């Protein structure tokens, strides 16, 4: 059955299922099979949109929790120390962060921690929590595997519209530029589209012929071809129309693509890249940091707004993870170097208790993260999470926010513990 025909039938022949499907963007099959589609309960399982970068952006330099004496911030109104209400407390951060609406801030937490490396080349390792995720899987991919049964998304592998160097079970994930996503998924309605079913059937027959004498690897590849084709046929058409707004491959277009792909339920985990100042060693007057931080927070706000429009505000957790943070005071306003000891994950979404977790303290000739008291979120070296476990703990906390049970997280990640203070 053609996709359009299927949609017509579900729209007009099966009650409101099709309408609900179109409204939410989730494949109609999910609503027809709610028990299996939401096996782990939609209230618990959340999709992940990970904003990842290997540039080591200075997110850590201006967010709530980073405005203490001795830390250098850019000048200008957007970086004036500003009270930002996170739950029942105000925290000082750059005014730029107030671009996030209060309803988003009310479910946003800034977790200060270390990534233990100052090398760009360790981006892939940071994505595995520096090797703490079992079998050296990347965190996003380990979570995707856990979440897929709950969402029954069309594929388990994360979809990456702009983040660098992601892998799944050791395989590099293809980078899907937003403009290419738009071009690839656009639908036709002509004679060739009407012959699609016939072609698919003949192709399956072709595969069957070839499998007779095929090697296991050849057979596996042909099975994969059939599977991906089937997945491609199952995407809701009205969401494809939303891709029309994509004009390029920039941060804003990645945000748009990620939101739509989340609504398509293509994967339980998506990744993109939003710039917050990048690798700004020689950023005189921190000009790039100013420009990109303001724009970056704006893109985060836009992402949340689009998720709300798509009815996904309570289904998606958005988090940032960079290879490292940047130095906070060393070079003044002449740019920032790599900081292995301080990074901030900004995590927003349902189930997040708003606030600032962890803290910073002088370290060497700059600043680094403290340990964390998991119950209160206070930054202290006397807490139950030492500095050396803050990255693993941040990863596990993100997993818990996605609805994964602690036992599963302990199976997937060595060390660290869930920071309960970050959970609503």
């Amino acid at each position, binding site marked *: 059955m053609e996709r359009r025909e299927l949609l017509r039938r579900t729209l007009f022949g099966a009650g409101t299922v099709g309408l609900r499907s179109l409204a939410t963007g989730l494949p109609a099959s999910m609503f027809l099979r709610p028990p299996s589609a939401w096996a782990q309960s939609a209230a618990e399982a959340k999709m992940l949109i990970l904003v990842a970068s290997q540039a080591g952006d200075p997110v850590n330099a201006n967010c709530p929790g980073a405005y203490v004496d001795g830390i250098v911030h850019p000048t200008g109104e957007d970086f004036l120390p500003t009270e930002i209400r996170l739950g029942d407390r105000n925290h000082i951060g750059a005014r730029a962060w107030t671009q996030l609406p209060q309803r988003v801030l009310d479910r946003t937490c800034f977790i200060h921690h270390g990534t233990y490396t100052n090398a760009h080349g360790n981006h892939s390792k940071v994505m595995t929590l520096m090797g703490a995720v079992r079998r050296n899987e990347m965190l996003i991919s380990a979570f995707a595997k856990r979440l897929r049964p709950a969402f029954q998304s069309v594929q388990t592998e994360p979809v990456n519209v702009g983040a660098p160097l992601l892998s799944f079970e050791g395989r590099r994930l293809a980078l899907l530029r937003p403009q290419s996503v738009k071009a690839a998924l656009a639908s036709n309605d002509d004679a060739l589209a009407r*012959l699609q079913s016939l072609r698919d059937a003949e192709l399956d027959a072709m595969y069957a012929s070839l499998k007779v004498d095929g090697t296991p690897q050849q057979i596996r590849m042909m099975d*994969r071809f059939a599977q991906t084709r089937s997945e491609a046929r199952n995407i809701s058409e009205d969401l494809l129309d939303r891709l029309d707004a994509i004009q390029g491959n920039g941060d804003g277009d990645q945000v748009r693509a990620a939101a739509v792909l989340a609504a398509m339920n293509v994967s339980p985990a998506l990744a993109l890249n939003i710039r917050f100042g990048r690798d700004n060693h020689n950023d005189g007057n921190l000009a790039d940091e100013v420009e990109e931080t303001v724009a970056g927070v704006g893109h985060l706000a836009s992402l949340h707004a689009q998720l709300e429009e798509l009815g996904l505000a309570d289904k998606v957790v958005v988090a940032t993870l960079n290879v490292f943070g940047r130095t906070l005071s060393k070079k003044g306003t002449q740019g920032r170097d790599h900081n292995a000891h301080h990074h901030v994950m900004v995590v927003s979404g349902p189930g997040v208790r708003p606030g600032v977790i962890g803290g910073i303290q002088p370290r060497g000739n700059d600043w680094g993260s403290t340990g964390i008291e998991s119950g209160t979120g206070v930054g202290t070296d006397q807490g139950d999470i030492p500095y050396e476990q803050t990255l693993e703990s941040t990863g596990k906390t993100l997993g818990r926010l996605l609805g994964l049970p602690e036992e599963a997280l302990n199976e997937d990640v060595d060390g660290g513990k869930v920071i309960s203070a970050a959970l609503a």
Partner: protein
Amino acid sequence: MPDPNPEPEPVCEALPTQLTAASKVKTFLTGLALDPEEVQALQEGADLEVLVGQWQALPQAEPKLFRFLATTLQQDEFSGDALEDLFDQGNFALYQNYDEMLTQNLQESFSRTALLIVQQGLPFDRIASTQTFMMTTAMMELMAFWDVYILDDAGDRAYRGQPDFERVVFHAERNIPVVDSFNPEHPDFMNFSYPELSQDCPNLPSIEVSNRNRHMAAFRHMFGRPNGARCLGKNTTPWVRPEDFSDWRLVTIRTPNGDEPVDSWLDLPSMRQDTTLVLDTPRVGFFTSPSFTGTWLTNDSNSFRLNLNQALIVALNESFEEEDVIIPAFDDALDDAHANPSTSCYGCHSRLDPMRQFFRQSYSTFNGHQTNPEVIATNAEFIFAGIRETGVGVEDLGRILAAHPDLPGAWVQKLCTHVNGHACPTGEVFQAVEAAFVESGMDFLTMQRALLASPLVTGTECIEGGTGAEVGIARSRHLCSILANRLDFPQACAFNGRVRDLVPSIPDDAFARAAVEPVVITEDDIFIRSAEEKICEELARNRIGQDGFPINDPEATVLRIVEGLMGLSSNHPQHDAMLGHVQSHFESAKAQLDEANGNDFANRRDALRSSFILGCLSPFVVSMGI
């Protein structure tokens, strides 16, 4: 990143036929399918290595080899933005598309050089040590200007060209021959006319540029874009001609002997004739090319550590590991911040810093010629993978890399990874290929023949650590060569905007910062699949009705789809079965369309287009190894 602890794979459960293996190899090399004679020869036990030698000589093999070299030497991601950074310019716009042409020259230069090294059978290790490069006149001009227009370690700009000039004057009224404008002996030296600008902007006054931008203004004027012109968006007539961007030739860049002057960028007519460029700034091998330098832009923090590590990755397939610590013979090149052995940085920096000194002795951190005697006097030492040697500047680094014993094996592995999609086992077969490479005097084509005919690639024999023949999707460069060469349609992946938007969804091989393994995608997903389908649809609309795919002769068109596009010659064991599938689909499709309307021609055309898509999506086109 590959899983370092993979589950044990089932080893060699079933092996592919020699025909399948040969088909994979020919497709990899050329995009073409086996012809009937080759099918027959293989069925009669032909030597694959001999066939590989024949395929290497086909014209279709050259662009594929070029692409492999460009990616593996990390030369193909250079962009115009990097050109602006290298020259500290906010804008490097030149006449019409001259800036794009110049960027392309810079991007292609070393890949063309490496291609020539391979084609001429020169020792492949020259990729690290050569000082002779494929260049155009336009690129030579840029290199000569770069040599005298330098940024020092502090980022301060200096001009040391002879003669220097205090001002550049653009005259709105005078007509000055450009040859006089660039002639230091002429009274109109650095006086330019742009009457064509005054036509566009009638009230344009003469402009004098006497600040620090005057040198760049003059250089850009040679390329038709005077800096500081107030007639925005307009160009003057450039002295550099379009053919100056296409006159590729081998040019040796060498430093002056004694008091010998450097070649002047002002003398364009001589530059057009030159095959030697005398410059103070040394250029050696792949790792000092403008493309490599612009891709891995250093800064005063990483101070060429990045470039050094990427050079090691390209030459030796190895990168620094933090755990691997050697104490250098001297520590004056070690950054103070990392000189304390108690810090976590020490292990890596203690070796990186003396090694990056080879770059520092030759270049400032802003990629200008290094003139600071203190920096030049600071010792450089190569300490990596069992080799320890001192030297001076990038020339010695190139020499050391070229002679490094790990280089031959590294390039066997690079090629094998490129073919199979992941690193190959380095057992006896691998070592035999490496030995053949060394014994041939580092002849790349000899190594390529030995590798492609070996079980490492064919999978036709079970070898230690092997898993049989690797199967993967046809990555972008392979898919496009398959479509272009089998359809005899060079623009197959670029003939309209829609196809150009779709192609990036098909992954291509790439490199990444600090990563030894290239980025290679071997499995498809819904986006790759969707993009392939859309590309095939576009091609079907374009090709059906053209030569070889007549609408009025469905039988011939179906046969062309099977034998041409799918690449199954009449004597191929799969030919008849696949012909049956495509024929069957054509008949079913035609019948379905006929039921809906009576337009026989349109229905035949659409049924043939659908048959074309079927063939285009078959494993013989979208995968390699089936």
